[in-house]
């Protein structure tokens, strides 16, 4: 018996061939996260931005408590409300994206393969342009002299306050994240064997029943991954609430941004980021456990 030739499988590169990938991964994904986590446990300098390298959990306490005049910690729900508003807005975005995306994805999935490819390409067209540019375009559409108001005036329906409202912010979120819902839904529906729908009709099910009892359950992996892909970025969104919502309503995204900007409280901004990260992590963990229990395959991909 000869010594097994470990680590030298023909056609495979040695382990250090993956070194560049490991370095890039460490530098660009884990690195910034590590900095954020580190900053969240540091002390705020007396003046200006930045951090003082001194361990403290003050930043986390700030999110739930505030110091009263006599120095006691008093419960403060202001930031919880910000969280709650953000969760509500992200949930609404996710729900509306699903309602809009499902029929679209189903329609695309039932076209001929050539047409399907073209339509999927069309769904990704927004990705070809910068998000800011697209958001400014929405501002022009919704503005006082924008297309909608001009049309409304011409029809004698008067002028409407559209820009810098919650509605505009919500609209922007739905617009931005719709493709992230359409693509996973499409990919789970395109693999759907429509003979199963025929079997459903044959067994006495009406169209809507087939949709509810057969097509929807089988699209579940796509629904979950689409929902996560919309909910997670929508929760921490910054551009839409600020540019379209006018920053009038405080959401987590602009709250964090302001900590690194005007408020100059870097540790608190970092702590808020870590809290979102932890919440989303819990979310994913829950989905993962549920997926394992029900045997559903969930993948976070477009």
């Amino acid at each position, binding site marked *: 018996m000869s010594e097994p030739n470990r680590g030298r499988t023909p056609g495979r590169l040695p382990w250090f061939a993956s070194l560049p990938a490991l370095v890039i991964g460490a530098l660009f994904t884990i690195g910034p996260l590590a900095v954020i986590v580190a900053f969240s446990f540091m002390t705020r300098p007396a003046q200006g931005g930045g951090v003082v390298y001194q361990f403290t959990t003050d930043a986390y306490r700030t999110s739930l408590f505030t110091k009263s005049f006599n120095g006691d910690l008093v419960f403060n729900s202001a930031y919880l409300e910000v969280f709650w508003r953000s969760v509500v807005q992200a949930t609404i975005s996710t729900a509306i994206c699903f309602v809009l995306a499902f029929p679209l994805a189903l329609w695309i999935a039932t076209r001929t393969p050539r047409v399907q490819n073209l339509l999927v390409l069309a769904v990704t067209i927004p990705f070809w342009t910068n998000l800011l540019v697209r958001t400014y375009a929405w501002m022009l559409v919704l503005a006082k002299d924008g297309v909608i108001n001009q049309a409304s005036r011409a029809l004698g329906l008067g002028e409407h306050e559209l820009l810098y409202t919650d509605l505009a912010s919500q609209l922007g979120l739905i617009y931005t994240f719709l493709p992230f819902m359409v693509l996973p839904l499409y990919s789970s529906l395109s693999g759907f064997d429509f003979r199963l729908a025929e079997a459903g009709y*044959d*067994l006495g099910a009406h169209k809507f*029943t087939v949709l509810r009892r057969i097509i929807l359950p089988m699209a579940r992996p796509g629904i979950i991954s689409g929902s996560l892909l919309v909910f997670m970025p929508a929760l921490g969104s910054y551009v839409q609430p600020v540019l379209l919502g006018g920053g009038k309503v405080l959401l987590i995204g602009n709250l964090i941004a302001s900590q690194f900007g005007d408020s100059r409280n870097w540790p608190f901004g970092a702590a808020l980021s870590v809290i979102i990260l932890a919440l989303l992590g819990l979310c994913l963990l829950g989905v993962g456990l549920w997926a394992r229990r029900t045997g559903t395959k969930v993948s976070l991909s477009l």
Partner: protein
Amino acid sequence: MPNAPVIGTTRPAEVVARENGLTIGNARKLFATPEGGVVKALDGVSLQIRDGEFFVMLGPSGCGKTTLLRAIAGLEVLDSGEIYLGRDRIDSLPAYARPVNTVFQSYALFPHLTVAQNIAFGLQMERLPKPEIAARVEEMMALVRLDGLGGRLPSQLSGGQQQRVALARALAKRPRVLLLDEPLAALDLKLRRGMQDELRRLQRTTGVTFVFVTHDQEEALSLGDRIAVFSNGVPVQVGTAEEIYEQPVNRFVADFIGESNFLAAEINDDGDFRVADGPWRELSEPVLPAMDGTVTLAVRPERLVVDGTAPELVRGALAEVVYMGTDLRIRVSLADGTSLAIRVSPPFEQLHLTPGAEVVVGAEPSHLHPLAGER
């Protein structure tokens, strides 16, 4: 009792069928091909399928048999024509409202539902009470011999077991007609034989009319009470296995079902015929020859003899002898260049067949079938 007439009636089967069975009247369906052409999938099909019979629709792919099955199920809309179940016209009903169910070629089991849930699906659609559904599911699983597998997912079953689930799911609805679309095509030979027996048993015990589509002629012969042979969108012959095998109406049927030799025979003014330079013989049935005075005779390889036990038909040279165990397959070349396939049953030890030798091929008159409208 699939073939027996309905008790208490002596009326012709066709009349009974019109009142109880499945009647298809002049069904037509065109399909556009991707090349821009048009295919006549159903070119005026009229059929009467009797109550409780095992009816097989047989034909090569693209002959329209599956289209007709899907039209009966309601998954395909006819361009014109009628489908009656008993006296009720069903071709305008949606698929979910027809008292027929289908066993699909791909089984089409719902992968996210267990075996029991798959079988229960159609019953839930009828809004039956839960205890009744549970009882019917149990009954069906016992019927197809799947007891104890109710909790499995389809992906955890073998092909044969999936097939049984598909059967149970369709039969659970107690359909008046069960449609089966090449259900055994995906199974290997041994399993297929077993499932054929199983299907026959299920059909006898349930008494449901089975309409079975296949391109496998052996399967059709072994299963069908009656068989319809389809070609180019029409059934060219409908009959029992024996009728179709022994009395094929044309060259297509003779060729598609089993093996056939087609012999060009010359007809003289007395109505006698001869093959190549063989002796003149009398025809068993009168036939109208083609313009050039010839007719095509179909004869099965096992109906030709080389041992002189039947009247001489023609002489030829022995070209090939293949030993098949159960029989010998020999090939005889005639003077005019055609070759005959002959199957010789045992005992063949005494025949001393050596390639190149002259053999006398004989056949009984009743086994030579003149084919109508052909030469």
